[in-house]
């Protein structure tokens, strides 16, 4: 059986999809090699390095939106299987049915332009040119010549119109970048259809979806829809726990649907820290100002939570307070204008002590992947992040949680200082902000996911801070210069601010 090369992008969704695929490969005894890639450059080099040994390439969360055949120049007998949540998919990839196979859910709304609108058979054109050359020869018959000329001009005009239309269609198609169904869900669907789905795989699919939501890659609507789909699977897999008689042992893994708070990591942190460092609450309460801090105190007082308990670790908080904490917080949050503090999500529970929300895992894995503490090659932290997803590596996961806390704190501080010192500058249709080099946390933002999170937080906070509603349609543009890498990470966020309100 031929070996397969797995090219996996560095984001949590891709990791989860990769995890599911690895499990499937293990079932079928397929040999594979895993190569993490981050960016097109790395994709190309990885391909060049391995193209002699492999015929089958699986691309996860990379490659769909570039013309793979043109960029990679593969041999005829090389096959690509692309599972990418990024949209729009390059039309060449869509219509190449020989070498490139796309894994897309059928109900995804892709809006791909029709084949005839963007492609013409090359032969026809060649024929045309052949005709042209024929026509240019003096054949003698004038009438026929005229006809030919008319036909040719007609054809040319038709062609020009077609070209213009093609441009337009392609422009419309490629104008906005967005994300489709998460790769992890696609992979899980695959496993399900093969009847090889496991509870673990389902959990990875959930984490993949949650990653998209945490990073704001998909709309709330899409998130809720996908959650609904996954919930069916969850209840299919975890129904055995409901009745008393054949309940599972506590050591088994159970996934449960939760309508939980969207406070980041609060079960592993203190409620106070979590409130302060979650984008949603800190932006709504405007925590960077003195007024905001007062508002937070009011909010806590409204819930009737003593400060001492709120600052205590969540695990060690007073039981009586924890009992109906969620309802209490939701009720008070409504008063403070935070309408959707609770979201639909899932939790995993195994053993006595290990209970995690899907977003906890996302934060932990992402920060493990972008760990800057040690100067290691990118693959090491990638593997570490991959390991943390499986349940047997709890230590790594806990380490990841600590890193995630650090990261969230850093983001919060940076956002606060940017807004307080008016560093966010409005420039035409864009907002931009430059981070000073040498500030303590700037090193944390040298990786794409962290930078992306930072800019989204900054954007949301800025929207809340500004009174000028006109700026609501602007976009942020965040640049951070990395001295060591001698290149600038420039990140444009092509989401209008309206969507995040």
């Amino acid at each position, binding site marked *: 059986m031929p070996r397969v090369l797995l090219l996996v992008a560095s984001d949590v969704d891709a990791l989860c999809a990769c995890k599911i695929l690895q499990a499937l490969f293990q079932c079928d005894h397929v040999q594979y090699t895993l190569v993490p890639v981050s960016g097109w450059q790395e994709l190309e080099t990885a391909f060049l390095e391995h193209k002699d040994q492999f015929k089958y390439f699986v691309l996860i969360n990379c490659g769909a939106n570039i013309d793979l055949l043109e960029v990679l120049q593969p041999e005829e007998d090389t096959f690509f299987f692309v599972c990418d949540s990024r949209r729009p998919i390059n039309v060449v990839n869509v219509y190449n049915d020989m070498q490139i196979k796309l894994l897309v859910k059928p109900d995804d709304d892709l809006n791909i332009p029709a084949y005839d609108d963007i492609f013409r058979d090359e032969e026809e054109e060649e024929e045309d040119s052949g005709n042209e050359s024929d026509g240019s020869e003096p054949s003698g018959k004038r009438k026929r010549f005229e006809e030919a000329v008319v036909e040719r001009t007609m054809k040319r005009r038709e062609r020009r119109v077609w070209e213009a239309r093609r441009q337009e269609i392609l422009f419309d198609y490629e104008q906005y970048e967005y994300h489709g169904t998460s790769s992890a869900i696609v992979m899980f669907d695959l496993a399900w259809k093969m009847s090889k789905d496991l509870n673990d795989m389902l959990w990875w699919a959930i984490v993949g979806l949650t990653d998209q939501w945490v990073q704001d890659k998909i709309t709330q609507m899409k998130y809720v829809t996908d959650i609904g789909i996954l919930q069916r699977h969850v209840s299919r897999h975890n129904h055995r726990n409901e009745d008393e008689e054949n309940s599972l042992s506590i*050591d*088994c893994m159970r996934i449960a649907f939760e309508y939980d708070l969207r406070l980041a990591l609060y079960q592993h942190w*203190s409620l106070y820290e979590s409130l302060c460092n979650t984008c949603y609450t800190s932006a709504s309460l405007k925590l960077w100002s003195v007024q905001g801090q007062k508002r937070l105190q009011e909010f806590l007082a409204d819930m009737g939570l003593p400060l*001492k308990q709120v*600052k*205590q*670790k969540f*695990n*060690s908080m*007073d*039981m*009586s307070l*924890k009992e109906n904490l969620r309802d209490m917080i939701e009720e008070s949050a409504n008063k403070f204008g935070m309408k959707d503090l609770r979201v639909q999500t899932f939790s995993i529970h*195994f*053993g*006595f*002590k*290990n*209970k995690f929300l899907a977003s906890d895992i996302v934060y932990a894995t992402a920060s493990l992947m972008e760990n800057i*503490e040690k*100067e290691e090659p990118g693959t090491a932290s990638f593997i570490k992040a991959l390991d943390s997803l*499986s*349940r*047997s590596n*709890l230590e790594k996961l806990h380490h990841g949680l600590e890193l995630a806390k650090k990261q969230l704190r850093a983001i919060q501080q940076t956002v606060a200082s940017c807004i307080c010192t008016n560093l966010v500058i409005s420039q035409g249709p864009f907002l931009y902000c430059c981070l000073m080099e*040498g500030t*303590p946390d700037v*090193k944390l933002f040298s990786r794409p996911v962290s930078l992306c999170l930072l800019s989204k937080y900054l954007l949301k906070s800025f929207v809340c801070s500004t009174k000028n509603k006109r700026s609501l349609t602007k976009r942020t543009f965040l640049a951070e210069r990395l001295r060591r890498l001698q290149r600038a990470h420039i990140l444009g966020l092509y989401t209008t601010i309206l969507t995040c309100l």
Partner: protein
Amino acid sequence: MDCRVPSKGAGAWAVDRPIVTSLRFCRVKSVLAAGATSTMSGFDDPGIYYSDSFGGDPAADEGQVRKSQLQKRFKEFLRQYRVGTDRTGFTFKYRDELKRHYNLGQYWIEVEMEDLASFDEDLADYLYKQPAEHLQLLEEAAKEVADEVTRPRPSGEETLQDIQVMLKSDAHAANIRSLKSDQMSRLVKIPGIIIASTPVRAKATRISIQCRSCHNTINNITVQPGLEGYALPRKCNTEQAGRPRCPLDPYFIMPDKCKCVDFQVLKLQESPDAVPHGEMPRHMQLYCDRYLCDRVVPGNKVTIMGIYSIKKSGQTKNKGRDNVGVGIRNAYIRVVGIQIDTDGSGHTFAGSVTPQEEEELRQLASLPNIYETVAKSIAPSIYGSTDIKKAIACLLFGGSRKRLPDGLTRRGDINLLMLGDPGTAKSQLLKFVEKCSPIGVYTSGKGSSAAGLTASVIRDPSSRSFFMEGGAMVLADGGVVCIDEFDKMREDDRVAIHEAMEQQTISIAKAGITTTLNSRCSVLAAANSVFGRWDETKGEENIDFMPTILSRFDMIFIVKDEHNEERDMILAKHVMSLHVSALTQTQAVEGEIDLNKLKKFISYCRTKCGPRLSAEAAEKLKNRYVLMRTGARQYERESDRRSSIPITVRQLEAIVRIAESLSKMKLQPFATEADIEEALRLFQVSTLDAAMSGSLSGAEGFTTQEDQELLSRIEKQLKRRFAIGSQVSEHSIVQDFVKQKYPEHAIYKVLQLMMRRGEIQHRLQRKVLYRIK
């Protein structure tokens, strides 16, 4: 006893509770019932005696039932709690630990509150809110589990021991200041420093008392745990016909029928960083019992879990006059768990080393450049001074202490003196060593007295008897004493540590106490020149130390603040970057060991390794020693004067110690030739260079015989010509001797020496010398 169980109600209870446990709590009422019925009814009453074993009185027994249920739940927790996943396998944390501890004869177990909360949140909540009752249940449960897991026990050990349960929590600690009355009798977690401890004493948990007139005994009276005592009954209740009533306060305790536990009272002080500006730290009394005794010593930084309790305030003087103070109580904490913080300075034992850590440390030791790495990790924020750092590394690891067949010991600790200009980071190095050494004591010369450094005898205010209290050098036994401003110390105080430095003991004969204390510690001292800055022109005058103390230091470094543009540039850059990146840099730089690991490594090496010189190394050192001496002789012959730097046996020992410490870093059993080479180099750059600059010639062994003869000749001549009571101008004396071809520095030295001995004195603005004796 005849127990007849009424059928009603019994069936209902028996269904959901195992009979075995509930029978333990059956209350026997027959005696009382019999007494009541026999007095009331006539002779025809058949007398139904029964014991209602399933709680005939539901209101009174509800607590009992609830307790037994809770205890069952606790037992389930201890038996069933497991960690791990189905992939990694499970370990039954508490069950296994209980078994292990029990088999080792350690009858205690540590329970994490978080584990308990994840098993059953209510149990943890009960334990938080009413710890006093529920901890007892947990201990009972632990005892039962221990019984199950250790059965069958070997013969002779059948009786089950009580198990002590200690608690541990991951929660954020509260502050002593924040403990308010609403926390009373709850579980609290508090950080602090232990500043005082009493000796371990015994406290009865169950006592038997006897009436002294009627010899009636009452057995097994439970005494509340904690500092609360037990008030003996004032009256004897037994009434026997034909005997006079027993007098008031008839009971006494029968000590041989009491069960006792160890207990100790500690004093906890707030940690310094929690004290608000301008306030004094607050204290809290701690009560520890059983296995918690002697876990900590004064100086340890700890985090304690305990029950915030109250006790009767101390005896008031005007007792009985007014009882307004009835409800006023003093707070103390009944400790149920102690965690020792290993970071920070002072008495912070690194604790036990886990096998993984041991593996890691061994790997570290096997690095080829471990010596450089360790030296680099010593105070990484200080630029340069590589040789001093290397010497400090040697001092931290130390040589091997040897016990000779005749019972005498040779010290293995390395003493180090740094002399030099201000602003050369000497104190910083000292502070670092204090933090990094397993036991470190930092004192400043001016602030420490002889008694404070060695030992003092003080009178106990309560018992009015004398007892000893160890000083800095006793407290640092097995570690390092850092003495800053060594030159500012009074000469008498400095003399006090002579014995400690070479013999490593401190002998005391004061106030009826004659004893010898151990002080096996290294001394790291820092001093300035006499003139504040090092005066190149003055040479040896810079140092104002007795040769006796100088000779006790293995290595002496002279740190000079040299002016060198290139070096200054680098230094300035280094200092700037330190100030700029003080916040951002928290992680250890590549190639360095972080402080905690270094500390662990040092204490590990010190305990695990005691290297000796290998035969080849000894041979090499011997040859080098001979070569140096002969080489020196040759050099002397050539230059026609004796070198002022001979290598004596004392220095030879120092080199051996340094070489041993170098091999200790590598965890090798024998010091190799390379170690000897490096030790010689270190000795060369430190003491020899210092001696070379002419500054140590006052020290013993650094003045050659010829110099000595020269000096004594000058002195003799001077004394002959300079009568007592006369005064001569200094200039004329010097001129006179110079004319006689005596070297000028020798003349000054003689004058200096005589002045030190108090034989001559300067008069009239140091122009004229006056001979006193």
